[in-house]
């Protein structure tokens, strides 16, 4: 992940979190504020409803009072107070009074409770209305709720009673309005609010007894728990009903018990306030918050992008220059454009690069001198050994010539033979150096790796069990799935020979030589392991350096040649070794040659393997 991307993500994440936090905080606080407002609104509406309800009661009482105070009513009271009154004269009067005073219920009742006329149930004339004759100050009593019997059953009514006294007798005027859907429809309620009425006409809850201004309430069963709770415990309760899964269809109900004159529960009035507006408003705010948040995030992302680009550009340039330096371009420099920390870093980097380049130049020079010295030492060492016998032979030949001519021929023959042998030796030495300097280009052809390994082991088998030295046991673990690879069989054999010889040299006390082939991911690996003395870490690091050897008589070219062969085949070479535990060389060759020569691969491979 690039530095710019990290900065971008960091900035963007910060912006997103900040915007989300702000949006959440705004949303929560707004929702609470609206819920509080809605609660206050509902409370105000319920209060308004109560006042409206009380006003309607007062209106009923006022109208009943108007009937009672009328002259005609007084006349009627006088007439019915006389002996043997003719009640039939008044049987239809209640209907007229009800229509004139816009009341649903008007009953004219004689002092003894006999109904003279009834508007809502005209057939009740002559029957007794006992409750109205109770000793009550009806004028002070005010309006009240009552369960009224009708031809169709029972109904709730908001009623008032006035008494028109005539001496010891008199006339009761009962008036009222039905508490029904028409009553609910006549209430002045704000939009989004409705009133429901449950009439307790039977002991248990029934959906038939629940109505609103438009008639029976759909899905009234959902209100049953609330109503039943009030029927059991008559006190006001608030409950939210979710009519559907949509929150906007929810409705908050304030349920109020309706009691009669005796405090008996007659019904439940439910004032419902729709949550639609609140939910819609909340959704709008949520959408607005999401929009603003999204815009903020987008803006933050763009800003982050710009900031990240601005911040990371010098670092990226520094990284590129570092890459160039790492690739060997020691002249690469970072352009310093600012004096801030990044500018100081760039300047320090340039300074460091200059110092490193200088040190490298010096190191190369030093290494080159050291290499030439090593080469000179090696050449001197290699050439010194044959030269000394040559010198002795020549001196011996000269002495023989000077002192004993008879033996000169024999000495000459022996000396020339020795000279020739040593010259051959010198030639061999020179040839080996020459060979290393002129490694041939691989001639690729299909090579059976397993067969090649077996040939190499077979070739060296006599040496494994040579007389006079501890035996070496070869172990072969050849993967039969290893196929042919494209390689130069001579170079490959030469590399394996060198590794086997090195292993044999590493096991002067005998041991086990293990050769293993394996096919893995389009490549073939060949491992050569010994149980010899092993190498130190420093030895491993210099192992492939030309002319470096840990052996007393080695040229230091064997492993350099192996590395050269592997490299020329586009392969990799790894070495794993622990002092006293033996050493394992692992050569990896691609099955198909792509033509690309992987130079430097072994270095990486070694570094990886040696870590």
């Amino acid at each position: 992940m690039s530095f710019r991307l990290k900065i971008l993500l960091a900035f963007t994440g910060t912006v997103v979190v900040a915007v989300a936090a702000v949006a959440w905080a705004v949303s929560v606080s707004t929702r609470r504020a609206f819920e509080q407002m809605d609660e206050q609104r509902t409370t105000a509406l319920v209060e308004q409803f109560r006042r409206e309800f009380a006003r309607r009661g007062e209106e009923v009482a006022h109208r009943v009072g108007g009937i009672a105070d009328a002259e005609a009513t007084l006349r009627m009271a006088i007439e019915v107070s006389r002996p043997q009154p003719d009640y039939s004269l008044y049987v239809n009067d209640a209907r007229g009074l009800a229509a004139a005073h816009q009341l649903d219920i008007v009953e004219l009742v004689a002092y003894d409770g006999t109904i003279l006329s009834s508007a809502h149930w005209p057939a009740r004339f002559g029957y007794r209305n006992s409750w109205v004759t109770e000793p009550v100050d009806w004028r002070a009593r005010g309006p009240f709720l009552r369960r009224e019997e009708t031809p169709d059953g029972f109904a709730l009514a908001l009623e008032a009673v006035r008494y028109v006294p005539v001496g010891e007798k008199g006339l009761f005027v009962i008036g009222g309005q039905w508490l029904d859907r028409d009553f609910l429809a006549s209430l002045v309620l704000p939009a989004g609010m409705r009133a429901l009425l449950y009439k307790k006409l039977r002991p248990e809850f029934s959906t038939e007894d629940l109505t609103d201004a438009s008639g029976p309430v759909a899905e009234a069963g959902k209100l049953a728990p609330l109503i039943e709770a009030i029927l059991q415990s008559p006190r006001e309760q608030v409950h939210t009903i979710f009519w559907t899964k949509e929150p906007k269809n929810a409705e908050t109900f304030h349920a109020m018990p309706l009691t009669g004159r005796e405090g008996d529960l007659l019904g439940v009035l439910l004032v419902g306030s729709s949550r639609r507006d609140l939910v819609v408003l909340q959704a709008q705010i949520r959408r607005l918050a999401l929009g603003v948040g999204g815009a903020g995030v987008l803006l933050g992302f763009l800003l982050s992008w710009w900031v990240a680009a601005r911040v990371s550009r010098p670092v990226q340039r520094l990284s590129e220059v570092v890459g160039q330096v790492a690739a060997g371009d020691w002249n690469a420099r970072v352009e310093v454009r600012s004096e801030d920390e990044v500018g100081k870093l760039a300047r320090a980097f340039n300074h460091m690069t200059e110092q490193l380049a200088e040190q490298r130049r010096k190191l190369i020079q030093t290494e080159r001198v050291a290499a030439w010295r090593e080469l000179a030492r090696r050449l001197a060492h290699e050439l010194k050994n044959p030269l000394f016998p040559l010198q002795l032979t020549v001196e011996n030949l000269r002495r023989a010539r000077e002192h004993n001519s008879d033996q000169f021929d024999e000495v000459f023959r022996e000396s020339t033979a020795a000279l020739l042998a040593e010259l051959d030796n010198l030639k061999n030495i020179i040839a080996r150096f020459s060979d290393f300097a002129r490694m041939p280009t691989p001639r690729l052809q299909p090579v059976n790796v397993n067969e090649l390994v077996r040939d190499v082991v077979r070739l060296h088998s006599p040496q494994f069990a040579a007389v006079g030295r501890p035996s070496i046991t070869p172990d072969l673990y050849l993967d039969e799935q290893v196929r042919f690879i494209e390689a130069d069989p001579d170079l490959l054999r030469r590399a394996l020979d060198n590794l086997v010889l090195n292993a044999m040299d590493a096991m002067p006390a005998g041991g086990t030589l293990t050769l293993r082939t394996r096919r893995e991911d389009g490549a073939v690996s060949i491992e050569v392991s010994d149980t010899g003395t092993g190498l130190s870490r420093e030895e491993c690091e210099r192992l492939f350096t030309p002319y470096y050897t840990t052996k007393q008589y080695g040229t230091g070219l064997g492993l350099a040649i192996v590395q050269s062969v592997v490299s020329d085949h586009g392969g990799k070479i790894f070495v794993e070794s622990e002092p006293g535990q033996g050493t394992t060389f692992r050569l990896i060759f691609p099955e198909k040659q792509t033509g690309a020569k992987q130079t430097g691969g072994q270095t990486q491979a070694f570094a990886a393997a040696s870590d």
Partner: protein
Amino acid sequence: MKLTRFPFLVCVSLVGIMGAALSLASAAHPSARPRYGGTLHIQTEAKILSLEPAELPPATDSAAVLNSLTNLVFERLVRFDETGQLVPGLAIAWQADSQHRQWQFRLRSGVFFHDGTPLTPSAVVGSLERAGRGWRASLFGETVLIQTDEPRPDLLFELCQPRYGIYRHAPDGTLLGTGPFQLQDWVPGERAMLTAFENYWDGRPFLDAVELRMGRPLRHQRVDLELGRADIVEIPAGEAAEAGHSSFTVWVSKPVELLLLVFPEEGPGASPRLREAIDSAIDRAALSQVLLRRQGEPTGALLPNWLTGYGFVFPWQRDIARAHELFAAISAQPTALRLSYDSSDALARAIAERIALNAREVGIVVQPEGRGPDRPGAETDVLLVRWRLPVANLAVAMRSLAARFGMLDRLASTEASSLLASYEAEKALLDGHRLVPLVYVPVAYGLHARVKNWTASAVGNWNLAEIWLESPQAEQSEGERR
């Protein structure tokens, strides 16, 4: 308005009583000389769709109006007088054989159809043949002979029905009768215009014309009467007493219309015990005293007491204990009984609701249901209906009642003219309480002050032939005097 109602009522009552007394006295005993001329305007709530006698149904709800109207245009061979006795009509004499299978009628002479052609036996035969049921009419010399296969002792009663009015068609299709008025204009169900028949055998009527408006609501009739646009209108029985305090005269008949409950033979109301329980629970006195303003007569009998004299024998008083006892003894108590009534009849509605309330005291649930005239009794458990006494004749009334409610089979004898037979017949009809009489109410008409010499039959049918109208000048001066 209510503030001044009672003093107003008291004053108007006094004035009205005096005025009504004077008017009735004037109508019953005309002190002024009869006057020819004028058009009498009558309004009725009923609608008559056809006047042709042969097409008239045997019994209809508008039978009283129909009787009155057809009596003006068509005459029968025989007729009932005001007391319910058979008297000669177009036939001045008749005789029957001993088995009542052959009836011979001698016609009145000097009778003409409205087109001036004389009434002949052949015309009578033709008319009877068109309307006849189960008989054969033929000429027998100068007389008309009616022959039947079965003995028909009640044939004369049958011939009194409007459908046996003697008539014939003019070439243009106009109905021609022999009555005091002839049909001039006829719009079925709406209007009938009659003009005086100059050659009426019993003398030309005083009136020049009679206009009858049908299907007129009672409230509109009352307004038209008050405004002088009608001379005779119908007054609901319950309002008769109050209407008597108005500026017009109210004529009230004897109680001739019975309100009764009719239970179908099957259904939830089929239990005689349940019917009797309802019968016992009904407070008839309240119906009469309050709903009918004392104009009704509570009854447990089917025929009015003034006609039979034995009506009091049938109990009508409320017995709530008996009702409780009867209802409690019913094993399968019905959940509710639907009580149907004519939704256009305000009195019927009030009575139905009162009956429901009375029944509720016993525990019987009765649900009043107003029905239109097109389906008065469909899908109901009990019906509240009116039945109008057709004639002040015991036998005819009893047969008419039994026929109206499909109970002719309960009449043991075809001859029920005797008081005892009538009593037995009534007992038979009331047995099982399929019919529960409630109250007898009178019919009432509002008469404009210019209407003079008003007379009506015992059952409330008009007799317009003797009426005359006061002249406009006299009416104006009388109004000024009032």
